Structure formats: structure tokens, C-alpha cells
């Protein structure tokens, strides 16, 4: 249940991000004093909880590396935090293949964080394939947001 609330929060932040390009737009959920350090809100607002991939690829793009580097630094700061790394695909692929592709993307995020000094035991992975889109429209704008790896505080 806690996870559901958190992912709903993440979705709200993402929607807010869609509509205004300012990542600092506080609003939803960020109460007085800002998010609790080491929480999912903290990760979403101050670090970035997700990276994006090219179509049918699972290589971490150079422009996405800074997000993962920030995540690694954040994890070093909050040593008690463990993550579930979710891999996702867009709708332009078949269900079963996309489950495997999502796993590759989750692995890519995990491997990056491990290479940056995070203990593998803190990082679990799961793939949802194309079945949990973050953005629900059938266009490249949405697809590029759905080809993603999302870090979720467990």
C-alpha cells in the first residue's frame, strides 16, 4: 500500500513535469520543509528517479548518466535505503519480448549503480514490460517516457 501511494506520488510529479518544464515546481505532496531525506519523494524531487532509453535498446544513454550518478551518490548518503529498480518498455513491441527487454533495462540501471559503488544486495530488479506505462498516449512523446528504468525505494 505504501508503495502504491509512493508511485502515485511519483506519477503526480511526472504529470507535473509534463506540463511545466520546471523540475523545481514543488506543489503536490511536498509539505513544509520538503521531502523527508532518503524517501521516495526525496529521490523523485531532488535526484531523479528514472532514466530513459532508446527504442529497443537497454544501453544507458550518455545524457541519462548524470541521473544515475546522482542516484549512486544519494544511495551512499542514505545507506539504509534499498531500491527496487523497475524496467519498462513502450507499447511498440510484443508483450513477452518486452518483459525481457524491461528486465535488460532494469539490469542496466542496477549494473550502473553497482559500478558506482552501490552494494548489489541493496538493488532488486523487476520488469513490467509494456504493462505499466507512465504516459498513456500513443505517440513518440509518451513512448520516450515509457522506455524507462525507475528506481523505487523499498
Amino acid at each position, binding site marked *: 500500500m505504501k508503495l502504491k501511494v509512493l508511485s502515485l506520488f511519483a506519477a503526480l510529479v511526472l504529470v507535473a513535469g509534463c506540463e511545466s518544464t520546471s523540475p523545481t515546481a514543488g506543489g503536490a505532496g511536498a509539505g513544509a520543509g520538503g521531502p523527508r531525506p532518503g524517501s521516495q519523494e526525496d529521490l523523485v524531487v531532488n535526484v531523479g528517479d528514472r532514466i530513459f532509453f532508446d527504442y529497443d535498446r537497454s544501453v544507458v544513454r550518455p545524457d541519462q548518466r548524470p541521473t544515475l550518478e546522482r542516484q549512486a551518490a544519494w544511495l551512499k548518503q542514505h545507506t539504509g535505503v534499498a531500491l527496487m529498480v523497475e524496467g519498462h518498455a513502450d507499447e511498440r513491441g*510484443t*508483450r513477452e519480448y518486452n518483459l*525481457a527487454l524491461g528486465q535488460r533495462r532494469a539490469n542496466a540501471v542496477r549494473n550502473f549503480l553497482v559500478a558506482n559503488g552501490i552494494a548489489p544486495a541493496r538493488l532488486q530488479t*523487476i520488469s513490467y514490460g509494456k504493462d505499466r506505462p*507512465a504516459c498513456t498516449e500513443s505517440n513518440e512523446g509518451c513512448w520516450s517516457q515509457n522506455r524507462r528504468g525507475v528506481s523505487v525505494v523499498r
Partner: protein
Amino acid sequence: MPDLPLIDPRAARPIVFWDALDRLADARRQAAEAEALSRRALLRGGSAAIAAGITAAALPGLAYAQAPAAPAAGAPATPGQPTVIDITRARVDPIPIAIPEFIGVNPAGERFGRDIAGVISANLQRSGLFRPIDRSAFIQRPADAVTAPRFADWRVINSQALVTGRVEAQGDGRLRVEFRLWDVLPEQQIEGTAFTSTQQNWRRIAHIISDRIYERLLGEKGYFDTRIVYIAESGPRDRRVKRLAIMDQDSENHRFLTDGSWLTLTPRFHPSTNIITFMSFFQNRPRVYLFNIDSGSQQVLGDFPGMTFAPRFSPDGGSVVMSVTAGDGSNIVQLDLRGRSVRRLTSSGAIDTSPCFSPDGSQITFNSDRGGNQQLYVMDSGGGGVRRISYGEGRYATPVWSPRGDLIAFTRFGGGRFAIGVMQPDGTGERLLSEGFAVEGPTFAPNGRVLAFFRESPAGARGSGYSARLASVDITGFNERALPTPLDASDPAWSPLIP
């Protein structure tokens, strides 16, 4: 409608499940023996069980029929048998058939008679190979035709075949349904059978009669006494609720099998029991499960550290082939259902998935990106002799082998479009049957003549306008139809003929 809760598979005692599997296998064997017995009994004019709770008996020919009654279904063709219509011709020129309401021996029987004739008519019409004649054109009254068809009256309305029947709702709650199929031109009975069962089974009797008509007139087995398991979808797209659901092939007797607490995907039927294999995200551990339709019990299949997915039963029902993630790829493994031994069939490092056996069990077709992008491959059932079979434009996925062995159906995509197609197992003769923004996941009806799949429409602003629905199409691409479901639907799997 009560929803069955998802049971923690670790709480379920495995032995219970396997006992159920054994019992079902025994029941299937007994049904097969009973069917063989029934055929012999029918030929002798006796009666016997033909399906769970349904018995059949041959009806003697009527005195006024010009020719002796043809033997029951399954008997070899003899002179005096109807001319079997070539399916290719029936596609172009559907067989005109008259299906009057079955006559009620009593008032309750009358209602069943009307409903049974309605189901038969709808089944045959939907196949695209028959054209039920409008009842307002009938000259002879059904009550008279059932005892003595006046063939001239049926010829003049261009009816090639005539179906008549009588229904008696018996005092003990049982239903007796007499059915006769007549060849109008040579003026003879093709088949006459009486079915007895409980009243609740009236739809199955109608489907079995539909299959008999299809088989006697087209020379191939029908597919009406079957079910479809699929994933029912509801809710917004980013938080979709997905539940296992099952219905008859004509969308009737619909029920949900899981309550939607966890994401469920890709159900597939066991070849001879009421067991399904599917994938569930139960407790956020995506794994392949078995599900017993009768008891609702379910159980995780195997013990793997990573995700298991894309399951399918072997044709003998004794094992499941599926994918297991390994590193950045996935391997195809075969898991024996009793000993639970695991055999790895591929280990390419690539994504190897969507395995499906040939009907004789000797080969497996699957999907792999080992060559750079998704293509179809065939290998020997032991994992050797891998060869690529798809060479057209775009990517190919979800291969399924026809129960007849002659075709492999697939999903193809590229250039922003998806298509459902078929090719021969050696990769030649590729044909596309249906196209769209998104179509996926073909599944064959047990006679290999019809495919079901699902079609999604593109989503507009905030996901509006999105839908996922089931459809069926003939293997020639003819007669595409919607398969109605109460909610949105995906991942259909057609059952074998119901044992």
C-alpha cells in the same frame, strides 16, 4: 459473480494440485475411452457418454426418408453420404442451411428448442462458411418437418441442408435433444442423434450439434464446443487491472478467474485438462503459474531466481516450455510437471522467448533477437538444429504452431504497424491476415481453421480512446469478426475441444 481470490501458492500443498492434475488426466483418458465406446455403441444403435455428463444415441432413420440413415459421426464415408463441401468454396459461397426451431415435446422443451436452434444458427453463421436461411422464408412448418421433411419445400428456398430437432424437458431435470441433419437434394438423412444431459448443459449440446454439422458438411472437425481464456482489462492505462477470465467461444458463460489484485498475463490451456498456465506478478515476483479452473487453486511453477514468463504446455501435457531470464537475455527451458526436472533448451545470451511446440512434439518454434532483432526460429524439441524461418520486412514475434501442423502464426511489426500472419513451418508462404495500429498474440482454434488475437486502438490525450478487444479471423484472412467480451480484453488462448 464471485471472484476467486488469488491463493498464495506457497500456502497451497503441491500434492493437492498434482493429484488434481492426475485425476483430470484420468478423467480425460476415461472420456477418450468412453468416446471410442460411444462410437461403437452408436453404430450399434446403443447410447453412450460422449462428454462429461452428456450421452448420445443414434436415432433410427425415419420411414419416409428416401435413403437409410447415415451412421454416426466418425464413421467412414459411404455411398449415400452427403457431398462434402470444400471449405475454399464455402468461403466464397457459404452453405445455405435451414435451421428451424427445435420442436418442444412439452412447454419447457419448447423454450430449450428455440434457444438450442438459435445457438446452432449463430455458431454456423459466425464461421462464415454457412448461411442460415431467414426463417420467414420457410414453407413447411417445423413441427411437420421434424417428422417428415417435404424436401421440395426446402429446395425451393435454396436450402442445401436442413437441421431438425425435438426437445423434451424430462421430469427428472434432464433434457433429451433429438437432432437430425438432412441433405436436401438427395433427400436423405445425414445424421440422427439423441443427446441426454442435465438442462444446464443445453448450450454444450447446441455446440456439439454445431460441431457435428460442421464436420459432416465440410469434412473437418468443428471448434464450437470450446472455450477461450484471456485477460480482462479495466481501469486507466497506467494502473490497468488485469484479470484472468474465461468464456465459451461464443462469449457466453463468461466468468473471471482472478480478482485483479496482481497483474496477470498470457494464459494458455493444458491440452486435455482444465488447467491453465499463465504469468502472475503475485507479490511483485513475476512468475509462471498453473491454475486449476475447477478448484481455483494455483501454484507457482518451478523455483527460479529470476522472472519466468511466456509459458506453454507441451502437446502431451506433461511439461511446460517457458522463458527464464538469465543475465541480459532469457533462456527457453522445459519443466517436467511431475518430476519438476528442468531442461535448458537455449542459452544464446539473447532474448529467447515465446516458445511453442509443433503438434507432434518434435519441434519448437520461438522468438529471438540473437540475430540483432526479433525473428522466428525453429529448433528440435531437444534444443538442437536451430534455424531462422522469418525473413520478411520488420520484426516477428509470438509464433504459434497450428494444431494441424501446417502453419505457424505470428505477430509482425515495423513501420508503425502491426500485423497477424501465417507462414509454413519452413518459413515459406508468408501471408498477412489482419493489420492495424496494434494487433498481437494469435491463437488457433483446435481445428486450425480460425485464429483469435487482440487488437488495440491508439490512445489520444491522457489515454482517451484506447481499447483492447478480441477478434477472430479465418486462416485465409477472411471473415474477421469481433469476439465480444464484457470489458477490454487481451492475450486470448483458445481451448482444445472440450473433453
